[in-house]
């Protein structure tokens, strides 16, 4: 069965610090990969997604993620975080050609202090 691991459960940063959140998945076939974000009191929303092509994916708000197939990883990065990036971040995977049921990681809570 597919699974997704997010090893950072809680990350605390100061504004302007760089961010990298780890995401690893276990699935032998081709996958589609996603990062979702949940700001306090808001819906889950899509941050970025990878289906195919360039493994470096740009998302909204200056986020990017790199798909490294050999490492089964899809880490999320941002060079300089802002206080408004405080949120919970979820990595998710769905098998390519599957039923679109997303398998989520346990989430990483990011707190950014001014």
């Amino acid at each position, binding site marked *: 069965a597919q699974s997704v691991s997010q090893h950072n459960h809680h990350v605390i940063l100061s504004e302007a610090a760089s961010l990298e959140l780890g995401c690893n998945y276990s699935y032998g076939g081709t996958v589609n990969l996603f990062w979702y974000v949940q700001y306090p009191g808001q819906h889950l929303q899509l941050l970025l997604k990878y289906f195919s092509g360039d493994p470096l994916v740009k998302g909204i708000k200056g986020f990017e993620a790199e798909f490294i197939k050999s490492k089964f990883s899809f880490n999320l990065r941002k060079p300089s975080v802002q206080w408004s990036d405080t949120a919970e971040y979820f990595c998710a995977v*769905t098998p390519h050609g599957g039923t679109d049921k997303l398998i989520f990681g346990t989430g990483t809570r990011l707190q950014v202090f001014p």
Partner: protein
Amino acid sequence: SQTIHQWPATLVQPVGSPLSLECTVEGTSNPNLYWYRQAAGRGLQLLFYSVGIGQISSEVPQNLSASRPQDRQFILSSKKLLLSDSGFYLCAWSPLMIPSGNTIYFGEGSWLTVV
């Protein structure tokens, strides 16, 4: 544009009471529909998904059931709630799968506290 709504937003129910959470999608046809649960420290767990009316797949054995009486309506139910059913429940939809990997869109969520 498409919208998704679920209700109630918050619910406090005693152990052993029934549950009904409702979700509707507007502005699309034949969506795939999902129920997820977000429990503290456990991320988002897929409970049920449906690719059509009356077609429900259960991902995990549990005290809950789901039904899809209409194309854009998805209901999460329980006959007798357990304390362990407490959590944040999210309804979601995605377009009918064409190429794989369509984005999933989430509702506002429903907080259920079983006391």
